[in-house]
């Protein structure tokens, strides 16, 4: 999954087509039992959470016990460096765990702010339509006019010096138009339904309609997409760091680890593939969970 997929996985392409989830694989009422994959995904995310919480118990990820060039150590040769050490002799396990913190930061903060800002603007835009909508649309479209990675690159060139926080800020800006369009599309679909017309006809104020009528039916969809966007955010940070313009070196980041070791692929493939595998498993787990949530909510809706 590339960062450039953001739009698709949000279902926010021009024609507003949603990328299907596993949703399609389930018939109404005949819900799939939570399968092995689902439990696996939950378990893996549990491990990530554990890493985030207990990262401090592992060796210091900044320590360079053997400060020379031949510092590499293969996996499984010692404890607690059982994932080996990198070119500076730093414990890979520690760096993976500390990198998990980075990943969780860049996954949650932008998504939360995207939901908040984008969702609110979406509701406003869907309720008022007209000029309000047109103006917000122009800003959203302008942001979406940049291929996402390009926008991030552009921002990372001006948000200086690069750090976890500048990247988080960049990603946050990136998520807003996505959530905006999703919320808007969802709310507009509802505002044509008669219960919204009824509320208007009863003299309900805009705030009441937006938050009591439109929002409850949008939240579930938004949240299930949010899980998938988190995966996209993690990949985005990884990609930036892989390009060497993301989280700068002493700070641990999965993508950065791959970037630093990619030239040693022949000799120390483990140092490249371990962070790759961790990234893959995390993204995969989030996708599995997101797809399932999405299909669940979709099914609920279609039963109405």
């Amino acid at each position, binding site marked *: 999954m590339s960062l450039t997929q953001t739009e698709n996985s949000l279902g926010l392409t021009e024609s507003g087509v949603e990328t299907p989830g596993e949703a399609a694989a389930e018939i109404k009422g005949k819900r799939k039992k939570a399968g092995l994959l689902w439990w696996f995904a939950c378990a893996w995310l549990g491990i990530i959470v554990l890493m985030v919480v207990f990262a401090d118990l592992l060796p210091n990820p900044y320590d360079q016990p053997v400060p020379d060039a031949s510092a590499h150590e293969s996996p499984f040769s010692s404890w607690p460096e059982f994932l080996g050490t990198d070119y500076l002799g730093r414990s890979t396990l520690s760096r993976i765990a500390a990198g998990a913190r980075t990943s969780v930061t860049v996954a949650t903060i932008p998504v939360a702010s995207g939901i908040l800002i984008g969702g609110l603007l979406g509701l406003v835009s869907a309720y008022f339509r007209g000029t309000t909508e047109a103006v917000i649309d122009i800003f959203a479209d302008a942001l979406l006019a940049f291929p996402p990675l390009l926008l991030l690159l552009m921002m990372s060139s001006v948000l200086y010096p690069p750090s976890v926080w500048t990247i988080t800020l960049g990603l946050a800006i990136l998520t807003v138009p996505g959530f905006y369009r999703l919320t808007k599309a969802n709310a507009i679909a509802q505002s044509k339904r008669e219960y919204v017309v009824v509320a208007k006809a009863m003299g309900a104020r805009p705030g009441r309609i937006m938050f009591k009528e439109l929002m409850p039916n949008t939240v579930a969809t938004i949240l299930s997409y949010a899980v998938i966007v988190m995966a996209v955010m993690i990949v985005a940070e990884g990609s930036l760091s892989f390009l060497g313009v993301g989280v700068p070196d002493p700070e641990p980041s999965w993508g950065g680890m791959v970037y630093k070791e990619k030239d040693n692929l022949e000799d120390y493939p483990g140092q490249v593939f371990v962070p790759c595998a961790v990234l893959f498993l995390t993204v995969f787990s989030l996708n599995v969970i997101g797809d399932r949530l999405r299909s669940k909510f979709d099914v609920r809706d279609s039963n*109405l």
Partner: protein
Amino acid sequence: MTAETSPETGEPTGSATGTATAGDTAVSDDVLLSVNDLVQRFRVPGGVVNAVAGVSVELKRGRTLGLVGESGCGKSTLARAILQLTTPTSGSVVFDGQDLTKLSKDGLRTMRRRIQMVFQDPISALNPRRKIKDIVAEGLVISGTPTAEIGPRVADMLRKVGLDPDFVSERRPHQFSGGQCQRIAIARAMVVNPDLLICDEPVASLDVSVQAQVLDLLDEMKGSTGVSMIFVAHDLAVVRNISDEVAVMYLGTICETGDTAAIYDSPAHPYTRALLDAVPAPDPGASHSGPALKGEIPSPMRPPSGCRFRTRCPLATDRCAEEVPQLREVAPGHRVACHFPLVGDDVPKEAAAAG
């Protein structure tokens, strides 16, 4: 464009007759709603739709008006325009002495409490994620009713529409059948004690057996609360029992209006006649009494010149193409917009022969 403007230029004369009758009753207090020369136009890609092209109707307190016509005749648009859900292009909607089209936003909001609406599709009319008690309470909450009062009133109203409040309150709409949902929608509308209830095809999507349940319930409500009603339907048979008066709409204009007996027993407009004939009777012996109406309702973007019905009318003559027929009285309270009404002075046979 000439086709569009000619009925409109002709309209003021039509409303003149309208105001003449309105003039008599405006003095008396019992007129609840009077719609005067209402025009509702929409811009759509490719032109302008005259969905409602100059309609005047009047509703007395405690009475029920049936509004009937084929789909696309503008009856639903008229209902929504009365509620100010769309902004009428011109004309006025006077409700209890106040012109709704001239009210401020806040004034309108207060006024809306007194007019409630019931829609065709009960399932889409109820928010799927809210509990029944919250749905029914909505109008009370909006109008600022004290919280302590809301619960009992909601329960009371649910009981009145034939649902057990203990059972339904905590549930959500998808757990109920269409007929039950429509009862909930009626409860929501009636809980605020409105003066006017607008029902937009409330039974069209229900099974016959359930239709009668809902019709009975509405009738009961009318009896117990004295609410006035506008009942929109495409089927003349449905409104017959519930309406005191009926207005038949065709292509954005009213072609016939009168009390129910007059409309059903002696329809004056050929369109009303055709609508009556088209209702299939559950009786193998009954044959249709007239020829089937040809064609379908024309585009409201390009209505025919003169009488809008002339393209499908078996009695149409050259005069119908040139002159817009005005609503005129053929019997006390029975008005029709036709050059050759089926009752009254003109003899339709001649016209038929001429055509």
